[in-house]
Each structure stands twice: as structure tokens, then as C-alpha cells.
């Protein structure tokens, strides 16, 4: 009797579980329905509105967010009654990336989303759930991009990402603080750079903002610049070891640089580091154009933009740049041709010259798309962005920041490795060796 009741109980629980599990996995393994992404797509054949959801981290309280909202609103107005793009904003970039991955894994790939392209992590492209734009890439649209960018983003013959943002990382410096320390111009060699750091320090000014939390962005910018200056812009190319003598030397320089930063750089995040520069606590920072939006306008005349120093040995030309990786747009495979075409129409609008200008001038974003700014538009950009665009455009060689190349496991490890290097827990040789091992 007892056994029978237990059997009934277990069977009931299992039945309950199966019902719940069945509800949760109804769409598993099937092509995603238009409703799965949360967008209320109606029957396109009847000519009703096609609704698309676009995932992004660009919140409207930022310059880039304002630009994105402006463009989406304009597109929606121009296509009223036909296509409607709805923005789904999550300002937390890492969690947004994780959400996108989870949605792809769950067969609910977002209609449109952006991500950091990493040639060592092609899991999104290899999922087979992204829309291939190559059939839609006509000559007119192709001409908006550089062939190199299109080739980079073409994986196994499929163009599943549209080139968009690819910003150069440059040196910002505070001219007033430089003047206080008796420095007239930004150094052109690394020896001069460290002399400048000494001069600033001697004048009671903290030379540079650095950070080690999250992706250690400002620190890895410096590391990438040191590495490229020593080993050329091909130092991170596929197959190149990360424990090369040049990387070891770059790690030594990075450690030296930490002697010239704020006490909270170790463990500090992007906000801490960039705020130090913005409020005038530090004289330099190595960052992308998005920082401009955070600099108060009354501080703009004090801000100088410069290219990286070199070792003057010809390994890299003066003016070379470390860049952020491509942050392209991608889209999920769609259940109907109409929805695919709606996405393509929107992406063409996003990458048009007019939209590119809005993104650059309003959003302070440097794009992969081709664009020519008039003198009037350059003046409209303001002195800091104007300098930025000019120096960035003079770059003849570039490489992507190391952290964007690393495999996720190495990327997760690099903050603690840099902290260990600075705290003497690892020698520069051990730092490079561990980085190489983590990247295998």
C-alpha cells in the first residue's frame, strides 16, 4: 500500500514536471517564430506593420544613445505603416552580450543586435542562426564599406555582420596640467613619454588614468600600444604567441606605467579611471571617442588629442593606432522574406552617409562606413572630436586592442594577471606565459 502511494506521488510529480518542461520547450529545435523575440510581428502578406526589435546598450542618456534613437525614430517615421523598429536597451554591455548568447542558444535570436567581433570567438557566427547579408549586399551598399572590413566579417562565405563601429584609441591629455608641469607638447617617443610622466609626478600631478577591473580597458590599451611599438602591428595576428619577448617587454613597460597612476587604479573600473581624467585628477588617458561625450564643454579647450609615442626604431610609423574591435550589427534568421528585407532596409538606412554623420557628430562614434565631413560639419563636431577625427584619419597602420583578440577564458583572466604583475606576484615573463596558456 505504502509503495503504491509513493509510486503514485512520484508519477504525479513527474507528470507535473513533464507538463512544465513541455511548456518551456515548445519551440526548441524549431525555427524561431516571429513572436519569439518579443516583437509583435503581424502577417506580412497582408501588408501590416513589420515590427523588429533591436537590442543595444546605447541608452538615450548618452551621446551615442541619442544618435541611435534619433535615427531609429527617423526610420520609423519614414516607414510608418510598413516597418517599426523598437529599441530594447540594456546599458550593461557584458550582460547584454550574455543575453544575446542565451537567446541564440534558446532559438530566440534577437532581430537585430550589436556585439564585439572577436576572430577567436566565432560562436555566434557558427551557431547557424544569424542572417546572411551577402545576398543583399548590392554594389551601392558594398561601396559604403571598406573591402577589408567586409572580408574580416565574412565567415565561411557568409556575411553575418554589418561593419559599423571601429574606433581608434588615442591619447587624451590635459594641456593645462601639462603646462603646469612645464611640458609644451605631447611626447613622440616612449622615452620622452616616461620623462613627461616624471615631470608631471614631480609637479604633484598624477600622470595617467589606468584601471584593472572588468576588461582592464585603459591598461590593455597601454599594453597594446607598448606591444605594437615593440613588435609591430602584426604582433597579435593569428598564430603569434603572446609570450614573445616583445610581449614580455611590453609587460615590463606596463608595470612601469602603473607607477604613474592613481592609487585606486588597481581594482578600479572604467568609470573610476575616466572620471579621474574628466575632473582633472590625471593628465592623460588612453581611450576611444566615446569619452568626449563625458568631458564637460568648458574643459574642451584644455583637451589635446595625440597619437601614440613610438620607440623611434621604425617598427611602427608614428601615428599608428590601436583600435577597438569591430562592433558590427547582426540579425537573427527570419521566418519570412519580408522580415529579412525589412532588416536589410533598416541596416542600409543605419549605414547610410546621412546616418553615419549623425552617429559621428551627435554620437561621437567613429564608424567603419565611409563618410566625408565638410568644414562646417567638422566645426560642428567641436574641437575635441575634430582633433580626434583628424588624427585618427591620419593613421596608416592599426591593430585591435589585445583584449578584443583574446579567447573568453584569457579575457576573463587578464585583469587578475595585470594586477598580479603590478603587485609583483608575477614577473613579466610569467605574465606573458600565463596569458598565452589561458588563450590556448
Amino acid at each position, binding site marked *: *500500500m*505504502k509503495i503504491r*502511494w509513493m509510486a*503514485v*506521488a512520484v508519477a*504525479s*510529480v513527474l507528470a*507535473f*514536471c513533464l507538463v*512544465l518542461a513541455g511548456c518551456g520547450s515548445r519551440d526548441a529545435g524549431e525555427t524561431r517564430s516571429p513572436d519569439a523575440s518579443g516583437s509583435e510581428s503581424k502577417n506580412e502578406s497582408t501588408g501590416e506593420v513589420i515590427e523588429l526589435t533591436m537590442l543595444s546598450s546605447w541608452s538615450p542618456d548618452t551621446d551615442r544613445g541619442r544618435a541611435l534613437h534619433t535615427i531609429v525614430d527617423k526610420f520609423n517615421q519614414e516607414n510608418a505603416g510598413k516597418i517599426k523598429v523598437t529599441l530594447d536597451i540594456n546599458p550593461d554591455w*557584458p*550582460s547584454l552580450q*550574455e543575453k544575446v*548568447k*542565451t537567446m*541564440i*542558444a534558446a532559438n530566440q535570436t534577437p532581430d537585430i543586435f550589436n556585439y564585439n567581433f572577436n576572430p577567436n*570567438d566565432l*560562436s*555566434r557566427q*557558427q*551557431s547557424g542562426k544569424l542572417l546572411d547579408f551577402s545576398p543583399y549586399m548590392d554594389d551601392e551598399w558594398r561601396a559604403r564599406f571598406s573591402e577589408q572590413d567586409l572580408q574580416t566579417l565574412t565567415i565561411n562565405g557568409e556575411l553575418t555582420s554589418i561593419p559599423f563601429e571601429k574606433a581608434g584609441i588615442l591619447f587624451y591629455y590635459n594641456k593645462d596640467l601639462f603646462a603646469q608641469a612645464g611640458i609644451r607638447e605631447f611626447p613622440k617617443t616612449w622615452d620622452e613619454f616616461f620623462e613627461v610622466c616624471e615631470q608631471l609626478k614631480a609637479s604633484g600631478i598624477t600622470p595617467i588614468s589606468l584601471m*584593472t*577591473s*572588468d576588461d582592464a580597458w585603459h591598461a590593455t590599451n597601454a599594453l597594446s600600444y607598448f606591444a605594437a611599438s615593440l613588435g609591430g602591428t602584426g604582433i597579435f595576428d593569428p598564430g603569434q604567441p603572446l609570450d614573445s619577448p616583445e610581449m614580455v617587454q611590453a609587460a615590463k613597460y606596463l608595470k612601469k606605467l602603473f607607477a604613474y597612476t*592613481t*592609487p*585606486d587604479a*588597481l*581594482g578600479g*573600473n572604467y568609470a573610476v579611471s575616466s572620471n579621474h581624467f574628466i575632473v582633472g585628477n590625471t593628465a592623460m588617458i588612453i581611450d576611444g571617442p566615446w569619452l568626449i561625450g563625458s568631458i564637460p564643454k568648458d574643459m574642451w579647450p584644455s583637451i589635446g588629442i595625440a597619437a601614440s609615442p613610438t620607440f623611434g626604431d621604425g617598427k611602427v610609423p608614428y601615428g599608428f593606432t590601436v583600435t577597438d574591435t569591430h562592433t558590427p550589427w547582426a540579425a537573427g534568421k527570419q521566418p519570412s522574406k519580408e522580415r529579412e528585407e525589412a532588416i536589410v532596409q533598416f541596416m542600409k538606412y543605419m549605414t547610410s552617409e546621412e546616418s553615419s554623420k549623425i552617429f559621428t557628430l551627435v554620437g561621437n562614434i567613429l564608424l567603419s562606413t565611409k563618410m566625408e565631413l565638410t568644414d562646417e560639419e567638422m566645426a560642428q563636431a567641436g574641437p575635441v572630436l575634430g582633433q580626434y577625427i583628424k588624427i585618427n584619419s591620419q593613421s596608416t597602420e592599426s591593430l585591435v586592442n589585445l583584449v578584443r583578440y583574446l579567447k*573568453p*577564458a584569457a*579575457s*576573463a*583572466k587578464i*585583469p*587578475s*594577471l595585470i*594586477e*598580479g604583475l*603590478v*603587485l609583483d*606576484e608575477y614577473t613579466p615573463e610569467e605574465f606573458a606565459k600565463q596569458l598565452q596558456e589561458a588563450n590556448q
Partner: protein
Amino acid sequence: MTRRQLVMYLFPALSFTAVFFIFPIIFVLYMGVQEWNGLGSFRFVGLDNFYYLLEDPAFRKALVNTVYWILAGILLHTPLGLLLALILFKKPKGWKWFRTLFFLPNVISTTALAFLWYFVLHVSLGLVNNLLKSAGLDSLTRAWLSDPATAVFANMVPFVLYVGFTMVVFLTEMSTISPELYEAADIDGASDVQKDWFITIPLVKNAVAINVIFNTAFCLRMFEYPLLMTGGGPANSSLNLSLYMYREMITANRYGISMAAGILTILIGILAMLAVFGLLRLWERRA
């Protein structure tokens, strides 16, 4: 109550426990022996994830730090809660006000408290260093959150100090003690300390057990303070098991290793609970 009624009453709770606890645990066990980066298919790797964990210095550091957290919960947080409860149990002037004040942090978000303490312990803006400087103790100032020697302990400070919940559990248990015991002790001329030591503390051993178990469980899953105050750094010096699992899953996309770490954490939790129960039983026998 018939067996049929018993099963019917238990069915809803049993069902939800199965769906939302047993099945996820089975899934974690399954994932612990797989390799998966969040997309694509799983790959069976046997015990490789566990071997990796045993060899990973970051995991070992996280394990040691989690033990520090548990020890802080048992040896610092719980006794401090007991001490405060003993003081408030004597109902000094304004005791109700103090009881509310001490409990208040328990209704404030841990995230807010973590940020508050981030700024209290900040190297240049922080209250602690500025107080030390104003007291002429400049030599004692340090980067509490950025120094590997102090980071993990700096993370523990808010947890150790905010003892409101622990204190309330003790006070509740103390309120059940018969006043006659204290009256008899007064007649015998016992001091306040003797009354606490020989009457109150032995009679709140159930509350001690509850608090030790709660605090051990809380320390095992502690996440917000290490994440928000130090991010597990510098150089993993303040990493704990929860943060290690989060980092492996979210940043490194190594779900299998994260799940294997989760399995070990569950085992450690079970062992910690068994040890706590064992010690409490020993205390009971000696008493």
C-alpha cells in the same frame, strides 16, 4: 490523516521542489562533466573540469577565501550579534531605538551597502583613511580594497558589522527564558556577567545553532560585496566561490567549469553543515 491526504498535501510543495530544485541540481551535475561555451553543442569531458579546478590557483584562492568568510560568519558575526542581544536584553535606556537602528541595514539593499563601504574604505576619498590622517596616523592608511593583504577582509567588514538579523534571532530566543531563573540568580548574588554566562547563553544554544547555520549558508553564497567592492581582486586575492562561478560562466563562457565549481560548492556546503551540526551536538552533550 490518511496517506492519501498526506500525499495530496505534500504534492504541490513536492512538485515545485522537484521542478525548481531537484531537476536544476541534476542539470548542474550533468553540465559539470560537459564542455560548453554558451552556444553550440555540449562535449562530454568526464572529470576534466574538476581536475582543472583542483589545479587552478584562482579556484584554490576562492576556496580559501570562502572558508575565511565562513569563519568570519561563525567567529565574528555570530558572537557580535549575541553580544548586542545580551546588552539589549537588559533593556537599557533607548533599547528599542537601538534594536531598530541595528536591524536597519538588513532592510537596505546589499548593493547599496557595498557601494557605501566602497567609499568608506576608498584609498583617497575614504572615511577610514581620512579619519586616520586627521588623527595623525598617516602610517596606518592603506589601499584597503586594492591591497591583496586586506582586500578580502575589507569585503567582510559590512557583513561582520551588520548583525541586526542575528541579534533579533537571539533576542527572540532570549524572550522565552523564564524571568524566575534570573530572580533566583539575583537571590544567589550572581553578577550580570555570571547571569549571561550561566543562564542566558546556555539557554539560547538553539538560536546559536540557527544563526551559525544561516550565517554559514550566507557566507557560502556571498556575492555582492566581493563583486562590487573589489571585483575579486586585486589579483584574485578577494575572489570567493560564488564570484569564481559567475566569472567562469559570464566572462570566460566556460559553463562546464562553472557548474563543476557549483557542484564542489554544494559539497562544501553539505560538509560545512555537517561540521556545524556535529559541533553543536558536541556542545549539547558537554552541556
